[in-house]
């Protein structure tokens, strides 16, 4: 019934790299944004009240339509401009990832540089989150970006990264190369909220390097339909560095998601946690996770939980590999259905069966994402409610 055929293969010739409508008007202030745009951006976490964000970067197809920065101690720029402004940045491009990795990276490497550069300066702790939005508006467009994020020593930054497409798209392609550098003692929190659309192909290629004592927290949330998503970021941890990778995935009819995380624990005292919640409601989710303990004195845990609500495929692939004695890694994977006892427990308190099921599903998806701004947390809660209504 379910084949993994065309969904996994991107035929580059199906997509168009040239923007037909080259000019999108630059958005001077977020508050003055056109409603059609705002609606697209807001649903993936973009806050239009600029006072709630430390900076904003918005790219539509291949045009940067907004870039602003209200905080000292950060840089928020288009990547091309950043490379001109900072010659040293060149050495950070294609450093963690090889352009020869696969067809997608090759395609990105041959394209003009687009995407964002974000940097938090040494010792600067940015209280409000920064936000980025990469949006595809043109049908069959292939958006290729190369994003660089640097959290300098002892700095702290939270980036909310939204991705969306316009509703009329028959198809589209997003290739996103991202290289993140978390320097000594720094903390980078990266929250991705994606709403791609039914026939959109999404191919992120991400690598993260976390130096001594650094912290990388990644939250990946994809509740809305996506044609085909393949994402398997690699994180390299040095001494006493930690990584937490949370993902919340929902695959409705027609969705194909192959999502995971690889964390290499390369320094003593490194810690990693990979947590995923996956709901299959007619689609396919391949939920991966791989912890590699390369030196002694490292610890990791992988937790992969899935619920199948409607026929589809949920394939959990948790992997652990240890190379030396003294690594401590564990995993926990569970794929199942909702426990009848839980449903009836709630019904005994007066909830209808449907309400009981939705309450349980909402709870299942309710991974505590630490540090999510209140208004966004509420928005996510609503999105989960909507999602669960769509599924029933």
């Amino acid at each position, binding site marked *: 019934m379910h084949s993994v055929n065309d969904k996994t293969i991107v035929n580059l010739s199906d997509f168009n790299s040239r923007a037909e409508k080259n000019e999108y008007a630059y958005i001077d202030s977020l508050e003055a944004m056109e409603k059609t745009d705002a609606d697209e951006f807001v649903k993936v976490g973009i806050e239009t009240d600029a006072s709630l964000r430390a900076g904003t970067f918005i790219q539509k197809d291949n045009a940067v339509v907004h870039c602003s920065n209200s905080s000292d101690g950060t840089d928020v720029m288009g990547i091309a401009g950043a490379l001109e402004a900072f010659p040293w940045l060149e050495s950070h491009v294609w450093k963690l990832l090889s352009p020869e990795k696969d067809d997608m990276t090759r395609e990105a490497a041959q394209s003009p540089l687009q995407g964002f550069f974000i940097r938090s300066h040494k010792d600067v702790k940015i209280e409000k989150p920064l936000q980025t939005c990469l949006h595809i508006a043109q049908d069959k467009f292939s958006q290729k970006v190369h994003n660089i994020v640097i959290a300098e020593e002892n700095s702290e930054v939270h980036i909310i990264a939204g991705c969306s497409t316009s509703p009329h798209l028959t198809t589209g392609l997003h290739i996103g190369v991202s290289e993140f550098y978390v320097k000594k003692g720094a903390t980078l929190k990266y929250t991705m909220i994606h709403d791609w659309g039914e026939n959109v192909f999404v191919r992120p290629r991400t690598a993260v390097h976390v130096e001594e004592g650094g912290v990388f927290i990644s939250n990946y949330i994809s509740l809305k339909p996506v044609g085909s998503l393949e994402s398997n970021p690699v994180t390299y941890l040095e001494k006493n560095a930690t990584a937490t990778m949370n993902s919340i995935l929902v695959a409705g009819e027609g969705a194909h998601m192959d999502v995971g995380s690889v964390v290499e624990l390369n320094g003593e005292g490194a810690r990693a946690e990979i947590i995923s919640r996956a709901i299959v409601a007619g689609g396919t989710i391949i939920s991966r996770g791989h912890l590699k303990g390369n030196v002694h004195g490292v610890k990791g845990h992988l937790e992969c939980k899935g619920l199948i609500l409607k026929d589809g495929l949920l394939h959990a692939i948790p992997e652990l590999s240890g190379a030396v004695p003294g690594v401590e890694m564990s995993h926990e994977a569970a794929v199942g259905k909702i*426990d*009848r*006892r*839980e449903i*009836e*427990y*709630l*019904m*005994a*308190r*007066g*909830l*209808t*069966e449907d309400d*009981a099921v939705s*309450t*349980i599903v*909402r*709870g*299942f*998806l*309710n*991974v505590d994402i630490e540090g999510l701004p209140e208004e966004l947390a509420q928005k996510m809660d609503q999105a989960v409610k909507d999602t669960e209504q769509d599924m029933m």
Partner: protein
Amino acid sequence: MLLIEELKVEVGDKEILQNVNLHVPPGETHILFGPNGSGKTSLMMTIMGFSGYRITRGKITFKGEDVTHMPLHERARLGIGVLFQRPPTINGLTTRRMVELCAGDRCVDVDQLSSHLQFDNFLERDVNHNLSGGEIKRSEMLQLMAQEPDMVLLDEPESGVDLESIALLGESINTVLNRGIKRNPSCQKGIISEKPKSALVITHTGHILDYITADRGQVLYKGQLRCSRNAREILKWIHEYGYEECVGCTV
């Protein structure tokens, strides 16, 4: 309030209850004794309408309505509430939210209710996650307080509860039932003016009888209710002679 006639129940393909007849009038608290495995929990689950308890004969009437085949949540809405002995954990759902859900459309002050039960510290925890025996019972009582049922079915409320908290638990049961003497005198008038609610309390040890007032007791033995008399008296008999002898006197 609750009337059970000639009830026969199977679980799997095993007959658990053969012929149960029971009447709990409005405002009365009945105690259900019985050895382990005699089917006390099964009877309670059947009254509530849980799946897996197949009624092959008989009838259950609640508030004059035939509820024998009524869906579970409708029985709850009609006014039956249950304290479960081993309720499941629900991940991602806080106890606070659960208590709000129990209240339905009514408004409840969850913090106030939980401070009476000394449960404040657990409100943000997932329902029944990592709770001790006693904490589970208090969580269940908290939910019942919000639900305000007209009849409560309590399944071994004292099991796993230490001596200190059993008094607290007993007090909360009395509150839910509008019975007993309250420590807080301002509520006294309310208790007297409000009609007591009905209860069916399952107990194996009988300890809970020190804290709540019982109107009557029954013993479930080999699929049938064998005797019906003063609950304390039954308890004495059971202590003295054991279940077998006790039910031997059945009239």
